[in-house]
């Protein structure tokens, strides 16, 4: 499988975030998405997941995002800054809901993320790290080939971070792909890197919104 992005250009609220971005990922690869704060890492991941619109083309396994959005999205598991956890439900209820929706198995995820010890706890009583573990467990439950991860290791302890790196390696070894925005070294064996560069001064001034151009401000 492969992921190709061609000439991606994204505006948010009329301001240019990135432009002319092209790259491709190959089978079995974990790729680190790096770049300073505000460079558009999260935006890029959301564009690839198809939850944000951008100009240009994203192609996953030869299927174009603009052509058949559903077919592309059904191969993607996304984990953003928010864990998508309902505080009123227990850890078990949260995870079995996602398993029911995505049709995956929960046993491996429970074991890998040590969720058994907090299984019956309401999610609002979990620590930030425990919630993050539950949020990441959804990746395994949804059984999708492409993982898009946005700062997945935030609030994880050292041991869990190492184990999560192992899970990513395992996922890629099984033919999956992962694009991971992170500032730390996950310790993966020879990961690819995708570096986003800050915009130049001229690009900063560029806008798709006439009301933001200089005549108006």
């Amino acid at each position, binding site marked *: 499988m492969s992921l190709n992005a061609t000439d991606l250009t994204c505006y948010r609220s009329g301001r240019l975030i990135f432009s002319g971005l092209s790259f491709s990922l190959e089978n079995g690869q974990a790729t680190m998405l790096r770049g300073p704060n505000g460079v558009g890492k999260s935006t890029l991941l959301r564009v690839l997941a198809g939850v944000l619109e951008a100009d240009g083309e994203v192609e996953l396994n030869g299927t174009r995002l603009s052509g058949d959005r559903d077919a592309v999205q059904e191969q993607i598991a996304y984990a953003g800054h928010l*864990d998508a956890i309902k505080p009123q439900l227990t850890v078990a209820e949260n995870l079995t809901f996602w398993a*029911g929706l995505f049709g995956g198995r929960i046993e491996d995820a429970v074991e890998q993320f040590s969720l058994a010890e907090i299984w019956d706890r309401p999610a609002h009583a979990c620590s930030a790290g425990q919630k993050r573990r539950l949020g990441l467990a959804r990746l395994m439950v949804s059984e999708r080939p492409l993982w898009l991860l946005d700062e997945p290791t935030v609030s994880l302890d050292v041991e869990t971070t190492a184990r999560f790196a192992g899970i990513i390696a395992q996922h890629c070894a099984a033919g999956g792909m992962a694009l991971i925005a992170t500032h730390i070294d996950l310790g993966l064996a020879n990961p690819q890197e995708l570096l986003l560069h800050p915009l130049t001064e001229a690009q900063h001034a560029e806008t798709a919104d006439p009301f933001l151009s200089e005549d108006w401000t």
Partner: protein
Amino acid sequence: MSPTLALLARELRLSLRSGGGAGLGLAFFLIVVLLVPFGVGPVPSLLAQIAPGTLWVAALLATLLSLDRLFQADFEDGTLDILTLSPMPLEGLVAIKAFAHWLTTGLPLIVAAPVLALTLNLPDPAFFWLVTSLAAGTPALNFLGAIGASLTVGIRRGGLLLSLLVLPLYIPTLIFGASAVSAAADGADPMPAFLLLAGITLFTLALTPFAAAAALRMHMR
């Protein structure tokens, strides 16, 4: 478990847990209807005359009460992003969420309405049509509300804007729902109004999933 059942079970569980708002609409409905005799005075003939309209208006307002959380809660905690990646189409998702909302807010109103109608001295022949018209009309309230909720998702204090958007859309349902009950109370034929009410509901059920899903997609751009 199938995706549909998983989502339905979660929606029902959430609305029955704290902050879910299932009991809130019902309590609001009870209080509003019980307040009316205090306002207009305890005149049985007057109460009987305004009972159908009062019950229907109170049902509209009670439905509005918990609508603003329908998509907003999922939007705020990131669940909406994940739901769009699920194998279920967004249209189906909207329909299931609106249906679950009806089960927890619309259905209790239908059960409570005959009891409250007693306090408003509704004439006996109208009781059957009160329940029937609410059963046929309340799904339209929840589904039209889902359109409003999807349009205002992500807006601060969107609940107020939601009321302004949705209440005008409730007018046809209110007119035909209340007039079916009034007709039955006056001994006239309630069928014409009831059939129009049912027609509006069917139209709304068919339209809402597409309209609300389009609004949610627009919001993500």
